[in-house]
């Protein structure tokens, strides 16, 4: 956990006061909606189909139990008793009243939370691996670097009115669990031949109407140069990114139009002039930030304690959940528990205030008061002693949160879609709900194995459909909802964009098509060990296409 000091607390409090004034000026008519819009967006306030929406930042997906309780309070006091966790590790409230937002933000500021830069044409909330600090394969905790960038870009005097939003991601592990290459700017920490750790710099990723994966513009950047390099990239984008067409305003278009090499040249020239200036990071400044991350006081434990292994043998349901939702921790005797927010018939990523409060209690009791949010819209308890796993499982089960479907076909990523969003062309949530009903049989899901479905209700791709093993994109045709299906996308170490399988299908047929795809996979795979995505890679999409369009 990063612990706020008096500077951070003063800052968020002053930000709330400023926004309170801006809301008052809007309500009095002193500000037009056009003038107010960029101001509210910079504080995470959208105007959606039915109401205002407030998006709260959970920097790099880490929450304290106290913060989660406060989110539950906001859900209860200002919204309809639930919140929606997003693919960017944030949470949003969909039924909030504009005049109450300053109060909600003031309540959140008391626990070091805010909605700053969760929207608008600025640097958005920093994201990283949801297992930061606990994953066995990481070089070091990425959150320290994410926090250094986060502070630097907060209310930045130069980069608060860029051509478009800007998403930065930091990864430091051997495996990419943060979808680095779909970000505008991404840093991957790795060691060079001399054993020194530094960042690979990737730029120009993004989904939306014109999807691109980020390209590497610098294979190795020294840690001291992280901020000056961020500054040089943002300055290049701020000046030369397109502003004439909202669909061409993201940095990916600039990188594509100039070519990655020419773009890199522009950045490097700018960077040379500032790299030894005030943004060069010295070890004292890094150590200062690092010192305000507190880590659990772990016990010296052994892996696989008898109470845990006996429980696995005794209870097949517990065993199945462990197989699915529990991952290795870097400390012996501990585990990472992923909590599925994807119940059958539910809205992916939604959690009720009751669940949030109960999870905060569980985190206090079993996970050193810490909770994580992953981009797959699930939560995690990052520091659970293995001996406590049976108790944690029973408690989660009582809350309806012990569903062993992590990474399976019903663990669907979906945007809010036309049920909430004013940009959407089609509904996402009911499609997800129907698919989870079709695949309600957990044995069948396990038989299918790892299979990621991503659903977006419009071309903006908030559900990341381009990188779903099965991607579903809602479009509108003559006033009706249709869905384009892509296959083969992925956002891991070998990120790829999915390929369109054929003509769009109507709303009522989407779940049938997913079932056909699943059946095609079962027929085509060489063995149970060949994952869906691997079969697809081996066969290409044609055999899948043939079966699906033969059936309809």
């Amino acid at each position, binding site marked *: 956990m990063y612990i706020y000091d*008096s500077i951070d607390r003063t*800052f968020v409090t*002053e930000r709330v*006061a400023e926004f309170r004034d801006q809301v008052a000026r809007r309500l009095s008519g002193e500000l037009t909606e056009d*003038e107010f819009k960029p101001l509210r967006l910079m504080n995470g306030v959208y105007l959606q189909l039915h109401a205002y929406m407030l998006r709260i930042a959970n920097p790099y997906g880490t929450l304290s139990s106290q913060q989660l309780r406060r989110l539950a309070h906001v859900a209860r006091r200002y919204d309809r008793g639930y919140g929606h966790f997003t693919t960017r590790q944030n949470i949003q409230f969909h039924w909030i009243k504009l005049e109450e937002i300053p109060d909600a933000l003031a309540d959140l500021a008391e626990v070091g939370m805010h909605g700053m830069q969760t929207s608008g044409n600025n640097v958005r909330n920093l994201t990283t691996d949801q297992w930061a600090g606990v994953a066995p394969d990481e070089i070091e905790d990425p959150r320290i670097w994410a926090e250094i960038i986060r*502070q630097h870009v907060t209310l930045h005097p130069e980069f608060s009115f860029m051509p478009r939003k800007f998403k930065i991601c930091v990864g430091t592990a051997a495996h990419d669990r943060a979808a680095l290459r779909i970000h505008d700017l991404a840093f991957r920490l790795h060691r060079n031949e001399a054993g020194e750790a530094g960042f690979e710099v990737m730029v120009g990723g993004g989904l939306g109407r014109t999807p691109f994966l980020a390209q590497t513009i610098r294979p190795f950047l020294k840690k001291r140069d992280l901020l000056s390099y961020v500054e040089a990239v943002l300055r290049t984008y701020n000046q030369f990114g397109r502003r004439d067409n909202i669909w061409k305003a993201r940095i990916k278009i600039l990188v594509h139009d100039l070519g990655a090499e020419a773009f890199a040249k522009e950045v490097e020239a700018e960077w040379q002039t500032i790299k030894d200036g005030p943004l060069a990071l010295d070890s004292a400044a890094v150590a200062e930030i690092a010192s305000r991350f507190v880590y659990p006081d772990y016990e010296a434990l052994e892996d696989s304690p008898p109470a845990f292994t006996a429980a696995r043998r005794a209870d097949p349901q517990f065993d199945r959940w462990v197989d699915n939702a529990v991952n290795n921790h870097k400390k012996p005797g501990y585990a990472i528990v992923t909590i599925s927010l994807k119940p059958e018939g539910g809205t992916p990523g939604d959690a009720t205030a009751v669940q949030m409060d109960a999870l905060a209690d569980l985190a206090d009791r079993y996970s050193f008061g810490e909770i994580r949010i992953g981009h797959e819209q699930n939560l995690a308890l990052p520091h659970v002693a293995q001996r406590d796993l049976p108790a944690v499982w029973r408690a989660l089960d009582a809350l309806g949160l012990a569903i062993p479907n992590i990474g399976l076909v019903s663990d669907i990523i979906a945007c809010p879609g036309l049920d909430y969003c004013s940009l959407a062309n089609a509904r996402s949530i009911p499609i997800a709900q129907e698919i989870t009903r079709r695949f309600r049989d957990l044995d069948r899901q396990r038989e299918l194995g790892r299979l990621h479905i991503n659903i977006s209700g419009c071309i903006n791709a908030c559900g990341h459909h381009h990188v779903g093993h099965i991607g579903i994109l809602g479009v509108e045709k003559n006033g009706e909802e249709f869905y384009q299906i892509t296959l083969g996308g992925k956002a891991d170490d070998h990120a790829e964009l999915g390929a369109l399988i054929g003509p769009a299908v109507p709303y009522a047929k989407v779940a049938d098509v997913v079932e056909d795809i699943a059946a095609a996979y079962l027929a085509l795979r060489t063995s149970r060990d060949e994952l869906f995505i691997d079969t697809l890679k081996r066969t290409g999409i044609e055999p899948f296409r043939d079966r699906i369009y033969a059936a309809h």
Partner: protein
Amino acid sequence: MPLIENGRIVEDRHVRVGPDDPIPERVPIIVPAQRFLAEADALIRRDGSLGIDWPNDRRVAELEPWLGHLALIALNFPKFKDGRAYSQARLLRESYGFGGTLRATGDVLRDQFHFLVRAGFDSFEVKKPADAAVFAEVLARYSVYYQPGADGRLPAARQRLQSDAAPKISEAV
């Protein structure tokens, strides 16, 4: 449109000269970029303070040879949302060492004041009189910032290192 300099509403002493207007002598003038580039040699020899109006889609690097002769550069915000001139201002101040007046023009509203000041502007053509009236008040909204800025305030990271005043874990939220 009220003009703010040194934190106060002041009279604008400058004459804005159009593309074809005669150039007045011995008064401060602001000329459009095109005209300046075409007549630079004559303009810099003229008696009187010289300012130029520079568009936000041209590189400020083009101005480098002339910076010593310019008393004022006006940078434009055609829309509140169009933030290119923030980069131009920082480049002029920090990379090219421009020490003259940097004036913000166009869609300049109160909620930009602290961004503008910290990017290096020191002259503001404010669109709404009500915004100009609260200039100082608006700048006092924030007592801390996270990054270095032209206002010379210490960014949070430096404050933390230089003072023990910043409480640490004991004041955890």
